[in-house]
């Protein structure tokens, strides 16, 4: 049985130590407010004891602190940062370190060992700030209310296999046995004949409204300039031809199945060897596209053919920018 209130207290002590000793200038952590147990990620600087006292770690810390770092990269550049991560955030951080997007020496990583996440909306709002938040091998509870992990609304957590996190400081102990990643939903899709699979995926592509929420929340979607939606280099009537040539329009913004297919398939390829299966894209999708069905196609290829795990080692060369002479030629490349 894990007690997240005491783990949060330990986390607060570590964070306040780091800030007081000047080991870091800022801490990025989850904090809670009046709408407990809901949390948000917050940037905390020295002297903000009021914010430090609200730092929390619980299964409701569903957002990614790495997405916060990604979005605020320019503002945080060169600053010494403490960052609180759970297992999938740690993997995502490794991906960004592999790509030299962040510098390891700028970061103090505080890892919270995670058993799985749960949707805070499933619980009634607890009364008082000291209602215990607990979890065990079967489920998660707030006060007297509890739900099973299977019903927590976080399907990717059920197949999470991350437990080799190596942060600078660590919080908590695993209370649930983690398994090998198994992608049952994908196996079900792949068992269909090609024609049915085409229908399945075409229906997913057709539903997309191109809001790019999946890209925005993704902790590793960190390109300065997105090939699909080049905002920085938007083409206007006054754009000179030379610049236009440097910004090919890979997919139009038109909401059509063929253009959506280009976007979503490209995203799956871009995520090859980078997707950490946090599942946040799927949860953020406003039209409920089963994005993991698409992304797991490349995750499956990377794991099955190349035995590569995204974000395992920060010193790795990224998957698609490296090669091995022993790579198979066509073995198992098709379903």
């Amino acid at each position, binding site marked *: 049985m894990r007690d997240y209130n005491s783990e949060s207290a330990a986390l607060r002590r570590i964070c306040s130590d780091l800030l007081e000793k000047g080991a870091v200038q800022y801490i990025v952590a989850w904090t809670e407010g009046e709408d407990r147990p809901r949390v948000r990620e917050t940037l905390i600087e020295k002297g903000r004891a009021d914010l430090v006292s609200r730092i929390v770690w619980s299964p409701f810390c569903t957002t990614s602190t790495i997405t916060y770092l990604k979005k605020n990269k320019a503002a945080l550049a060169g600053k010494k940062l403490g960052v609180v991560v759970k297992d999938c955030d740690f993997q995502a951080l490794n991906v960004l370190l592999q790509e030299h997007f962040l510098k390891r020496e700028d970061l103090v990583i505080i890892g919270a060992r995670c058993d799985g996440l749960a949707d805070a909306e499933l619980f009634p709002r607890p009364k008082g700030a000291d209602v215990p938040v607990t979890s065990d091998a079967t489920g998660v509870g707030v006060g007297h209310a509890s739900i099973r992990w299977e019903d927590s609304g976080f399907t990717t957590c059920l197949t999470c296999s991350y437990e080799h996190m190596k942060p600078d400081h660590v919080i908590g102990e695993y209370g649930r046995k983690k398994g090998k990643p198994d992608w049952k939903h994908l196996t079900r899709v792949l068992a269909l004949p090609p024609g049915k699979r085409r229908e399945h995926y075409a229906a997913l592509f057709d539903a997309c409204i191109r809001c790019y929420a999946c890209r925005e929340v993704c902790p590793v979607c960190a390109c300065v300039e997105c090939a699909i939606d080049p905002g920085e280099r938007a083409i206007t009537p006054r754009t000179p031809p030379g610049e236009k040539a440097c910004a090919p329009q890979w997919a139009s913004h038109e909401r059509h199945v063929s253009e959506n297919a280009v976007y979503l398939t490209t995203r799956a390829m871009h995520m090859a060897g980078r997707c950490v299966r946090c599942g946040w894209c799927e949860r953020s999708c406003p039209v409920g596209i089963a994005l993991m069905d698409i992304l797991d196609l490349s995750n499956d290829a990377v794991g099955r053919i190349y035995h590569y795990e995204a974000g395992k080692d920060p010193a790795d060369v990224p998957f*698609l920018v490296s090669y091995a002479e022993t790579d198979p030629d066509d073995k198992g490349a098709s379903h």
Partner: protein
Amino acid sequence: MKMEGAGNTGNAGEFQPKIVAFICNWCTYAAADLAGVSRLQMPPNVLNIRVMCSGRINPMHVIRAFSQGADGVLVSGCHMGDCHYITGNYYARRRLLTLKSVLTGMGIEPERFRVTWISAAEAQDYQTVITEIVGNVKRLGPLRMFREAPVVARETPGCAEG
């Protein structure tokens, strides 16, 4: 980039597939050239696009070709170790076979997307590959996946079709 030219020849009524072939300047393009000079017969459904190296091929080139109406795509470069730029085809192999796994998982038949390595001397291999891919794709029929919306009830009627 609409492929209007390729695939319009042949018997009336018979499906003529459109195949886009990205071929590398140093090996496969020379093989294609040799095949032409040697008068090797092969179906005319292929649009050859010469690139300097198979490592130039971004997965998006392939995806874009499919979405713009290609029924099949061929990427062909030098044999491993023979790349003019030393390692270009090693990178291409890893990324294109990952792409192949993704595309076939989506239900695009593996015969529609081929990655081959053909050296400058192997004109006959080029002929074989082209004949095979055109024959296979002709048998499979047109690829409509990326072209037409599937027939499913829309939740938001009145939403304009693109």
